[in-house]
C-alpha cells in the first residue's frame, strides 16, 4: 500500500506524460504480483469496491478527531479524502501494526459486509501513514484523478516487456485484474496468453494523417486505393457473441448500455461477428450531425424519449470476424466483399455500408474533400486495397485527409500560465468575438486554445501579454483586447456553459494577426449563423 500511495502522490504532481510513464514503469518493475495488477486496475478506475460513501469517511474521521476541527480542516483543505487522511490520529510508531499490502486491503474491503466496513476501514487507516491513508481513502471514495489513461498503462506494460503496445492491448482487454498471466508473459516467465473471450475487444486499425508530401505517391497508384468518407461520429466496434453483444469505443471501453438499439441490432448477426464502423444519429436515410449525437453521449441509461428523438446507427467500414473466422489478415478488398455480402444477407435499418467513392485523379479527390455532401463528413479516408487489418496507426496503409477546418479571427482576452515546461509562460488563451452589448460593442469569450503556435511565437506572446496586462485574477491575466488571432476549429456547438451560448470544437491557433485591428475581428452573429447552416444542412 505504501508503494502504491507513493506512486499515486508522485503521479499527482508529475506534470508531463513522460514523467508519469517513467514512474509507472519503475513501479511495475519494483512491485510484486498481485499488488501491481491491482494498482493498475485502481488507477484506471476499474476496481469494483463497495462504494464507501463520503458520509462514512466523514463520520469516521469526526469520531476520531473532533467534529468542529474536522469541519474547519475540511473547509481549508477542500478534499474529503485528504482532510480525513491528515486528521487521522497518528499511532505511536512502535504501536503501529504492519501496513497492509494493496492486494490485502482491496480483498478485505471487497469482502466486507456493509456493517463491518467502518471497523475494517478504521483498522486499515491505523496501519498506514498520512500518504497511505490518503491513497486508501481516494481509492474508496473514487476518482483518483492523477492523469493515468489506458494508453499510458499500455505503454508502460509494453516497455516492461519490450513488446509492441498493440500486442499488450490485444491481451489487456481479455484479462482481468490482477493480470498475473499478462505480467508473466511480459517478463518472459510464461507463453503469450491464449484463450480469448468471443466478446473481447479487438484493437482498432487507425488512419494516419495525410501530409501534402504523401500525395504524389498516392496519385501514382490511385487505382490501388479505396476511398471513403470520414464521418464525424464516434468510431466503435460491435461484437456479436453466442451469449450477447458488446459495443466498444476506440479505447476499448464498453459503451453498449448507452446504445441499446445497437446491442439489439447485433442479435440479428451470426455469433462471432465483429464490425467496425462509425456511430452516428440515423433516422431512416438521414444522418444527423455531431451536435445531435452529443445528446446521446455520456448517458448510461438513455430514456425512451431520447432514444426516439436521436436514434443511432452504424456506418460500417470493416468486418474483422465473420462467424468466428478472423478476417483481419485478408486484404481490405476481400474483407469489404465479405462485409457487403453479410449486409445483403442480414439487412438492418441500423446498419449501413460506408459508400466507396470514385476518384480518377488527385483533383477529383481534392474536390470530394473540399465539398463533402453532408455536414457530418469531416474528410476522406484512403485505404490501400491490399492492406490487412492491423492494430494501431499504420503508416502507408490507411490515410485520413481531413476537410479544412473552419477559421475565424478572434481577439485575445485572457491568458493563463501553462503546466510543466510551460509553467513560466502564458500559454493558454481565451478568445472573444464581438457582439452588440447594452452599451455598445463588446467582446464575449467563444474559445480557448493552447496549441498551434511555435516556441518562438510563444516567447513573443508571453512578453506581449506581460506588457499588456490590465488585470490579474490568480494565475490568469486579462489583457488589452487588441491582439487578433486566426483560430481554426472543427465545428461549432451550442453551449449553455459559455456566456456566448456557443463553443468552438477543437480550436487552435492558425496564425497570430499582429497586423489586424481588433475592430475587424469576427462577430458572434456570424459564428451563430454557421451553427444554423450546419443544423439546416443536417436536417436536409
Amino acid at each position, binding site marked *: 500500500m505504501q508503494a502504491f500511495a507513493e506512486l499515486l*502522490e508522485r503521479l*499527482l*504532481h*508529475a*506534470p508531463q506524460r513522460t*514523467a508519469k510513464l517513467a514512474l509507472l514503469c519503475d513501479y511495475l518493475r519494483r512491485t510484486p504480483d498481485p499488488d501491481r495488477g491491482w494498482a493498475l486496475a485502481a488507477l484506471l478506475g476499474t476496481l469494483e469496491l463497495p462504494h464507501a460513501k463520503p458520509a462514512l469517511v466523514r463520520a469516521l474521521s469526526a469520531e476520531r*478527531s*473532533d467534529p*468542529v*476541527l474536522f469541519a*474547519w*480542516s475540511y473547509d*481549508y*483543505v*477542500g*478534499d474529503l479524502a*485528504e*482532510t480525513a487522511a*491528515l*486528521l487521522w490520529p*497518528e499511532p505511536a510508531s512502535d504501536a503501529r501494526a504492519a501496513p497492509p499490502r494493496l492486494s490485502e486491503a482491496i480483498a478485505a474491503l471487497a469482502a466486507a459486509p456493509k456493517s463491518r466496513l467502518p471497523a475494517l476501514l478504521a483498522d486499515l487507516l491505523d496501519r498506514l501513514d*498520512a500518504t497511505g491513508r*490518503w491513497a486508501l481513502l481516494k481509492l474508496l471514495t473514487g476518482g483518483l484523478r492523477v492523469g493515468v489513461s489506458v494508453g499510458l498503462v499500455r505503454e508502460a506494460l509494453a516497455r516492461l516487456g519490450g513488446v509492441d503496445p498493440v500486442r499488450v492491448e490485444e491481451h489487456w482487454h481479455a484479462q482481468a485484474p490482477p493480470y498475473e498471466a499478462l505480467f508473466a508473459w511480459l517478463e518472459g516467465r510464461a507463453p503469450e496468453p491464449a484463450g480469448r473471450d468471443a466478446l473481447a475487444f479487438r484493437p482498432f486499425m487507425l488512419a494516419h494523417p495525410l501530409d501534402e508530401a504523401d500525395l504524389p505517391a498516392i496519385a501514382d497508384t490511385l487505382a490501388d486505393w479505396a476511398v471513403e468518407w470520414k464521418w464525424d461520429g464516434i468510431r466503435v466496434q460491435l461484437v456479436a457473441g453466442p451469449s450477447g453483444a458488446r459495443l466498444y469505443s476506440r479505447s476499448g471501453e464498453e459503451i453498449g448500455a448507452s446504445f441499446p438499439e445497437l446491442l439489439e441490432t447485433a442479435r440479428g448477426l451470426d455469433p462471432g461477428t465483429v464490425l467496425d464502423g462509425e456511430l452516428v444519429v440515423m433516422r431512416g436515410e438521414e444522418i444527423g450531425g455531431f451536435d445531435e449525437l452529443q445528446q446521446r453521449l455520456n448517458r448510461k441509461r438513455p430514456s425512451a424519449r431520447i432514444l426516439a428523438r436521436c436514434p443511432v446507427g452504424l456506418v460500417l467500414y470493416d468486418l474483422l470476424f465473420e462467424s468466428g473466422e478472423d478476417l483481419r489478415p485478408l486484404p481490405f478488398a476481400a474483407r469489404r466483399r465479405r462485409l457487403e455480402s453479410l449486409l445483403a444477407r442480414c439487412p438492418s435499418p441500423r446498419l449501413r455500408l460506408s459508400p466507396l467513392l470514385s476518384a480518377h485523379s488527385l483533383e477529383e479527390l481534392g474536390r470530394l474533400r473540399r465539398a463533402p455532401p453532408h455536414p457530418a463528413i469531416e474528410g476522406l479516408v484512403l485505404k490501400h486495397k491490399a492492406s490487412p487489418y492491423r492494430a494501431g496507426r499504420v503508416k502507408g496503409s490507411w490515410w485520413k485527409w481531413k476537410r479544412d477546418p473552419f477559421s475565424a479571427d478572434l481577439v485575445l482576452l485572457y491568458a493563463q*500560465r501553462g*503546466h*510543466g*515546461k510551460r*509553467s*513560466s509562460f502564458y500559454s493558454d488563451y481565451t478568445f472573444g468575438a464581438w457582439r452588440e452589448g447594452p452599451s455598445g460593442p463588446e467582446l464575449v469569450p467563444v474559445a480557448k486554445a493552447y496549441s498551434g503556435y511555435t516556441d518562438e511565437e510563444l516567447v513573443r506572446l*508571453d512578453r506581449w501579454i506581460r506588457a499588456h496586462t490590465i488585470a490579474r485574477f490568480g494565475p490568469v491575466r486579462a489583457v488589452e483586447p487588441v491582439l487578433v488571432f486566426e483560430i481554426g476549429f472543427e465545428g461549432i456547438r451550442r453551449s449553455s456553459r459559455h456566456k456566448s451560448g456557443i463553443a468552438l470544437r477543437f480550436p487552435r491557433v492558425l496564425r497570430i494577426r499582429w497586423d489586424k485591428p481588433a475592430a475587424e475581428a469576427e462577430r458572434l452573429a456570424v459564428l451563430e449563423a454557421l451553427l444554423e447552416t450546419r443544423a439546416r444542412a443536417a436536417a436536409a
Partner: protein
Amino acid sequence: MSRFAWLEPRPEGLFVRPGGFFLDPLRAVARAVISHGHGDHARPGHGEAIATPETCAILEARYGREAFGRLRPLPLETPIELGEVSLWFAPAGHVLGSAQIVLEHRGTRVVWSGDYKRRADPTCAPFRLVPCDLWITEATFGLPVFRHPPAEGEIAELLRAREANPERAIVVGAYGLGKAQRLIALLRRAGYDRPIFLHGALLPLCALYERLGVRLEPLLPATTTERGRIRRELAGEIVLAPPSALADRWIRRLPDPLLAFASGWMRIKQRAKRRGVELPLVISDHADWDELLATCGEVGAEEIWITHGREEALIHVLSRRGIRARPLALSGYEEETD
C-alpha cells in the same frame, strides 16, 4: 482589571506601556523590540530597534544601516531594564537570531513567541521553553491537518529526485531568510557536498550566515551572463531560488527544471498541485499543530493570546482543556512566509 492591562494593542502593534516600546511593530515607531528578521516582524524606520546581534546584522543587510536611528544588539538571555520592565531574549529556534521576547513587570512574566519551532535546526539555537503567566503565540499552522514530518526524510526525497533526474535542474523554492540556509545545512548533514547553486536574491543572506558562523559552502551563483554555459552546468544540480522565481522567466534558463518547494503548506497536496510543484517538501520553520498545542500546555500560562495564523481551532481545543485563550487582533503578520 486584567493583570495584563499594561500591554496595549495599538494600530502600530502591541505596546508595552511601562517600558515605552512596541513588540514587532507593523509601522515605524520610536522604540521597537524585534523578535527576528522576517519582513512582517521587522519593519524599517524605527527610531531605535532592539534585537539579538544576529538579527541586527540581518536587519542591516536587508535594509541598510540608515533604516534605523539606532540598532541595539542584545545577546540572548541577557536582561536589561527598560522603564519598569525587565526584558530579555530566549531562543525561538525559528531562524538565525530569532528570539522569544520575555517581559517581566511587577512579578508577572509575559512571553511573546515571535515565530518559533521546536524541531532541531542546524542553523540556529534551539527553542527554550520559558514558563510564564501570559503566552502570546503565533498560530501559522493552527489546524490539525498540519503535522510536519521529520525534515531529514524530506531531504532524502530531494536527493532521490536528483539521482533519478540527472538531466534536469532540481530547483527548490525556499524563503530567503532561514529556509534556504536550513535546506543547505540539512543537505550538508546528509552528506551532499557538491556546490549548491543560488538565485541571485539568496546570495547576500547566505554570505551573511557564513560570516555569522553557519557553514554552508560550497555555494555558487546560478545566474551568470553566458546562457549556454549554465544550461549544461546545472543539469543534475540543486538550485535554490526564492518562491517568486519559480513562476518567473528566470527559470527558463535552467535545463528542464524540476520544481520543488520547501514549505509547511506543502502538506496539502492540492495546494502543491495548484502551485505546479512537482516535488513538494514539507519543511517548515514554524511549530506544527502538535507543537503549538504542546507548547501552550508546557509554558503553564494562565492566559494565552494568539497573534496570527488560524487561531480559531487552537482556541477551541485550549478552551476544552480549561486554558483561557483569545485572539489578539493585530493585522499585518503574514502567514505565507514559510
